[in-house]
């Protein structure tokens, strides 16, 4: 079970990243759970300032940009 967290205050880019992540996770065929972290103080705890960001199992992988689904797939597969 992978825990995929989208860190972002809810702007358009964060929604896009969430959608891309979902698509990537489905394609990768892994078991997953998506959580959206929208509280700014929570986001800070990950050390992230440029939203949106993607964390896999609590580890921040991408900061400040929306990756296309293919690249996210590579990140979450291993």
């Amino acid at each position, binding site marked *: 079970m992978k825990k995929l967290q989208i860190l972002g*205050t809810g702007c358009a880019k964060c929604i896009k990243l969430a959608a891309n992540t979902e698509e990537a996770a489905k394609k990768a065929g892994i078991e997953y759970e998506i959580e959206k972290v929208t509280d700014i*103080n929570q986001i*800070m705890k990950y050390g992230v*300032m*440029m*939203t949106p960001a993607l964390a896999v199992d609590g580890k921040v992988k991408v*900061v400040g940009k929306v990756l296309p689904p293919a690249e996210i797939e590579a990140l979450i597969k291993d």
Partner: protein
Amino acid sequence: MNWKDEWKWLTGLAGAFLVLFYLPVGIPRFNNAVLEGLYLAKSYAQEHVILCLLPAFFIAGAIGVFLSQNTVMKYLGADAKKVLAYGVASVSGTILAVCSCTILPLFAGIYRMGAGLGPAVAFLYSGPAINVLAIILTARILGIELGIARAVGAIVFSVVIGLIMHFVYRHERQGQDGPQMMLGGDDGMRPLWQNILYFAAMIAVLVFANWGRPQAETGFWHLVYASKWIITAASAAGLGVMLVAWFAVPVLKVVAVAAITTVFSLAFPHTPMVGFMVGVIGLSFLTSTQEGEMQEWFSGSWGFAKQIMPILFAGVLVAGFLLGRPGHEGVIPSVWVSSLVGGNSLFANFIASVAGAFMYFATLTEVPILQGLMGSGMGKGPALALLLAGPAVSLPNMLVIRSVIGTGKTVVYVTLVIVMATISGFLYGTVF
């Protein structure tokens, strides 16, 4: 019947019915206001979209992709020199953020993990006011004077407000107990001079395409005006050469786009917008079909367009409906506006600052709203006061700020913003 779900429909339908039932159609003021909204939207579409907004989106997109935000954030990190941190914080809004939703996390980060309260507040204040799109649109629609005053005012006062906040809370231990700042991976940067030339070419296209007709029929400025399309075309050609040389865009593609653009420009010499539009489409084609950086640039620009255009159009319609075009009246009588914020009294400046501070302006909509207000008799000073207090704070973002720095500091901050905006509006109104 399941009333738990159905009541939403009921309220919605009943609401729509009541609005239509009492719709004040036929009352001249209302009818006229609807027309004003449409007129204003039309004039924006005709005058500002192709020549101003489209290139501005490309510039904003390029900033996001080609300038390294990480370099900037290093100056705002925990070990940064304080003097430098204030300086960088006050101007970095230009390249770091376009909407307030990116400002807030950065602000919280600079406060918690970085340089502390002062620089964080400086950034919070100047960020929304000096982003590229806001400055370009302000200068274009409200006049170059106000555009510059907005940028300069935001930079100067952000430092002052940051310093005061730091001074007031100097005895508190400052943040820095959080985790290390996470920055995105280092992007392969090209040399500074290449970046400068590349941005200069884009800015030249934007500036010269929008060059206004000067009063005099002779002299240097008129010469620039007369040859503005030649200069614009030359800048665009320069941009094309750079795309081939530094960004690995195939020569054939660029030449083809340049050729088609030239043909259209020459075929419609009296409506330069046609040629310009073909050029923009060509650039979109070049960037969107190229893997990597170029595609990121396009999708960044396109992202801004999607984010900003709908809100801006809606904002223009509403502003036109409420306040009318400059010189015309919308639903709100001009007398009200000019009695509240006309002239340049301290009171007018104060009202404008307070209104600006609490009102929420979606990205860039402050510009058409202000245009309407100024058309209805708002003074120049209060206009600047509203621009300085407006985008930086609003009721929703005060709540977020409060959750980061606490109630006391938030109140001090908002008070400082209102006082500063009032004073700077008053000074500006007195001088100009």
